[in-house]
């Protein structure tokens, strides 16, 4: 469900599909309302037909030609709009009223009422609409009223199911629980909470039902079951078909009424599509889209000079932007760090600090709107950002692997877990036999503490901790040198978290892995990390060995974070929070990112962004109030 349906009507006015659809419908509505004024002839007037006037081709007098009785097709077309629109609107109103009531009753009341109503809905659903409508209309009197009633009574089942599903979903939302906990009555819950949330969906559905009703009416009229006193478009087609338009070559008599139907139905469809887009805004991009703009706009050299000795992975001055409709967002700016074999670096920061963006950009896994604007990612001295896609794909997982956050979603629910691990092995070792792959998968699972036989099972059959272990096993599949773990224990209970941390530590010692451990939990950082990179608002606030960060934090944010962290070991520690909230990336302050919340901020801080300064051996921080320890020329260059 979208985050802000409150904005729906405002957004609707700007959506192209909605405007197009609404425009088409309004045009048709205008035609219908002002038909007597607009139509050249009154089709209801009796006319004497001659052989010259029957099926006359379009000319100056009859723009769309004449039909089988010599009447002007254009006039019939304009008047026909009245019937189609009337039937469409009123029939859909009936359908939606019935379906909406049944759906909401079933969804809200649940239990036996729900079952009974749904059984009834199913029974009506399986009887096909058009034949039923044919029977009902033919056996009663084909008047406009009857037709509207029949179409309305036949077409409510889709709405009922939709409304029921939506009511059930809304009923389970926390704010409804809260209202119930307060003691709100059923009536209040329905009118104040549930119905307003269901309404937008109902509006979209009404538009769809209208289009279906119009199509149904046209089919019924085509089959000769319409009200003869009100000629609709379907009726025009019926006359044309049964009175030789095909053999006479009178294409206008066939094209025009159909075009009218298509116009109105298309208008409804576009309107419905547009409204649905606003209501359930899909994420604009997906993971397989090609970016329309080049992903890396900075000039990249393949192997820049002075790669740091011993470093496995070196990131220099990495900057990432996101290009959105509202403007460009600087998600990461000028971040630098290096990683040695066997080192665990903690990447610490709160929501919106850019840590996920940073790690995704290391392997160029950013979404389509992401752009790397500066910096290099050196792996064994090779710049990963300069590699063509094919070569990078070979590096992915083989050298650097990611353990994603939220293992339930990061694993394909329809494939066995073992299969997904095997996939990685097969990709990077295509010559391995099936038996060898299976053995490797089993060994990997055992290594992380999962019985090998469970590789046949699916992700939903694993517990949370086990899923995380499976993700780790998968990451190890190709013996990478670097593992990037994105908040691997955040969703886990503390005892399971301890198990996972122990596992990671053991693996690091056994395999000599380097790990980037993303987290917001300072306790975990203190527990297993060797170095710490603290990020805030997309920039590196502090970067130092773990002891230095905890015992001599230099950046005011690090200070404040440590003070705010409830520390279990210190008995009477008062909690000090940081006033304000983390900056929103599309509205970053002009100077130091932390200045608005910093208790020591000066005028300089609000005006200029500080650079990353070296303030101790291996200790870097970006704050105007600090003294650099050594002159520039330190291995970690200043960001451009």
């Amino acid at each position, binding site marked *: 469900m979208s985050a802000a349906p409150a904005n729906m009507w405002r957004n609707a006015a700007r959506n192209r599909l909605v405007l197009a659809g609404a425009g088409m419908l309004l045009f048709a509505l205008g035609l219908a309302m002002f038909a007597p004024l607009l139509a050249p002839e009154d089709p209801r007037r009796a006319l004497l037909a001659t052989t010259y006037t029957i099926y006359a081709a379009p000319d100056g007098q009859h723009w769309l030609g004449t039909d089988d009785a010599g009447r002007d097709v254009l006039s019939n077309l304009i008047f026909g709009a009245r019937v189609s629109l009337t039937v469409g609107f009123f029939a859909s109103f009936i359908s939606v009223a019935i379906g909406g009531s049944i759906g909401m009753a079933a969804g809200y009341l649940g239990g036996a009422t729900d079952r009974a109503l749904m059984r009834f809905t199913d029974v009506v659903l399986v009887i*096909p609409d058009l034949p039923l409508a044919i029977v009902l209309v033919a056996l009663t009197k084909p008047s406009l009223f009857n037709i509207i009633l029949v179409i309305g009574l036949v077409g409510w089942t889709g709405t009922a199911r939709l409304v029921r599903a939506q009511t059930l979903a809304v009923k389970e939302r926390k704010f409804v629980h809260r209202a119930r906990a307060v003691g709100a009555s059923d009536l209040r819950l329905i009118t104040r909470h549930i119905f307003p949330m269901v309404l937008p969906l109902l509006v979209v559905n009404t538009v769809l039902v209208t289009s279906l009703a119009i199509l149904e009416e046209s089919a019924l009229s085509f089959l000769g079951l319409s009200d003869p006193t009100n000629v609709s478009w379907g009726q025009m087609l019926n006359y044309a078909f049964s009175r030789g338009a095909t053999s006479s070559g009178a294409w206008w008599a066939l094209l025009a009424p159909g075009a009218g139907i298509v116009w109105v139905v298309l208008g409804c469809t576009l309107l419905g599509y547009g409204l649905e887009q606003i209501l359930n805004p*899909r994420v604009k991009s997906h993971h397989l889209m090609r970016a329309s703009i080049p992903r890396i706009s900075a000039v990249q050299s393949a192997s820049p000079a002075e790669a740091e000795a011993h470093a496995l992975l070196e990131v220099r001055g990495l900057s990432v932007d996101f290009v959105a409709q509202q403007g460009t967002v600087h998600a990461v700016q000028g971040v630098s760090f290096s990683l040695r074999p066997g080192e665990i670096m903690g990447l610490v920061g709160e929501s919106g600090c850019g840590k996920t963006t940073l790690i995704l950009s290391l392997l160029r896994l950013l979404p389509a709107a992401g752009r790397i604007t500066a910096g290099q990612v050196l792996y064994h001295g090779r710049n990963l950002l300069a590699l063509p896609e094919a070569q990078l794909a070979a590096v992915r997982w083989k050298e650097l692997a990611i353990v994603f956050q939220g293992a339930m979603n990061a694993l394909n629910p329809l494939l066995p877990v073992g299969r997904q691990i095997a996939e990685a092995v097969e990709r990077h070792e295509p010559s391995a036999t099936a038996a060898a792959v299976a053995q490797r998968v089993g060994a990997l699972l055992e290594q992380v503490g999962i019985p090998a036989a469970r590789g046949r099972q699916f992700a939903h059959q694993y517990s949370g901790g086990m899923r995380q272990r499976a993700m780790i096993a998968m990451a190890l599949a190709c013996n990478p040198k670097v593992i990037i773990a994105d908040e691997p224990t955040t969703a886990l209970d503390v005892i399971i978290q301890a198990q996972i941390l122990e596992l990671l530590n053991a693996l690091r010692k056994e395999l000599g892995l380097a790990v980037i451990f993303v987290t917001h939990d300072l306790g975990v950082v203190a527990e297993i990390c060797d170095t710490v990179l603290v990020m805030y608002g997309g920039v590196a606030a502090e970067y130092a060995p773990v002891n230095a960060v905890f015992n001599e934090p230099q950046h005011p944010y690090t200070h404040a974070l440590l003070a705010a962290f409830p520390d279990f070991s210190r008995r009477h520690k008062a909690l000090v929070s940081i006033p304000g909230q983390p900056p929103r990336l599309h509205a970053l302050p002009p100077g130091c990112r932390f200045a608005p919340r910093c208790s020591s901020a000066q005028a300089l801080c609000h005006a200029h962004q500080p650079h990353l300064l070296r303030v101790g051996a291996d200790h870097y921080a970006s704050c105007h109030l600090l003294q650099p320890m050594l002159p520039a020329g330190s291995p970690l260059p200043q960001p451009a």
Partner: protein
Amino acid sequence: MQSGRLLLRKAWSALLTIGFVLVLNFFLFRVLPGDPARAGIKDPRMTRAAQIAIHQRFGLDKPVLNCLASLNPLRRGPCLVNPLQTQLFIYINNLLHGELGISYHNKIPVGELVRARLWNTAVLVSAGQALAIVLGIAGGVLAAWQAHTRIDYAALITSLVAWSMPTFWLGLILLFWGSRYAGLPIGGQHTPGLAAAGTVDQLRDAVRHLVLPTLTQTIIYLAEYLLIMRSTMLDVLAEDYILTAKAKGLSTFQVLKDHALRNAALPIITIVALNLGFTVAGAVQIEAVFSWPGLGQAIYESVARRDYPVLQGAFLLLAISVIVANLLADLLYTWLDPRVQAPA
């Protein structure tokens, strides 16, 4: 066994629905106005005695349902009629013996009539649906993968326009163009008089008669399947496991084949199966335009003649086919989705 129970439960539910449909079906044609005897019999000079005789022949003189006021307001007296003698019971009894009744109009068993017509409709529908499914799914995948590019917009617009067309109108336009400019037949299933020709000629003729109706079917349903597949695929491609697959170094093609398609197929199956159930009924329009002797046409004709047994039989068949299609789709879904089979 979990899935065994699930299967039984679903089958039972389907049977229950069939039961309700049966009863609803029965009452539908009894409640509607119009005396079948008078409407179905052609002779306008029918005497009262003859009417009564016909009523007796078709069992129309028996009460519909025990003690439910049989729509004759003049009826009085206690409802002590043997329930086994009511029309409802007779009808259900017959059904269980596989007898659908006898057509008022043709005097042949409904089962025979409906079976023949059903086959014709199935032939008409199959090719069109098969093509529509394959092309629609392929098109939807392509459009989703190339989302927001020109290919996508083109596919989207054409599908939306095609979806907005009434089926019969598309048939009319194709018929007009086909018969006037492409030399295709104007209707029917085969050219009369070719019954004596060789098999190859007959086959060619049959195919020529199928081209336009199939094309109509394909275009309309292709549009629907494309739109649905596109939106399902867009959702799937935004999921986290797609990113994981990409991070593993798999190529775009591999990710589409091994992860995206499999996951998107699941919801599509239900929709396709539901559609298949309704397609036979939807063929009414196409059969009318192309004069195809199928079930849809049978319904249309029987309405005019008040031939209730045929209508009842046809409706029941249609409803049962939808229920069965749903059940199969349900079972297929259960078989394919591991989350249903073995819950956490």
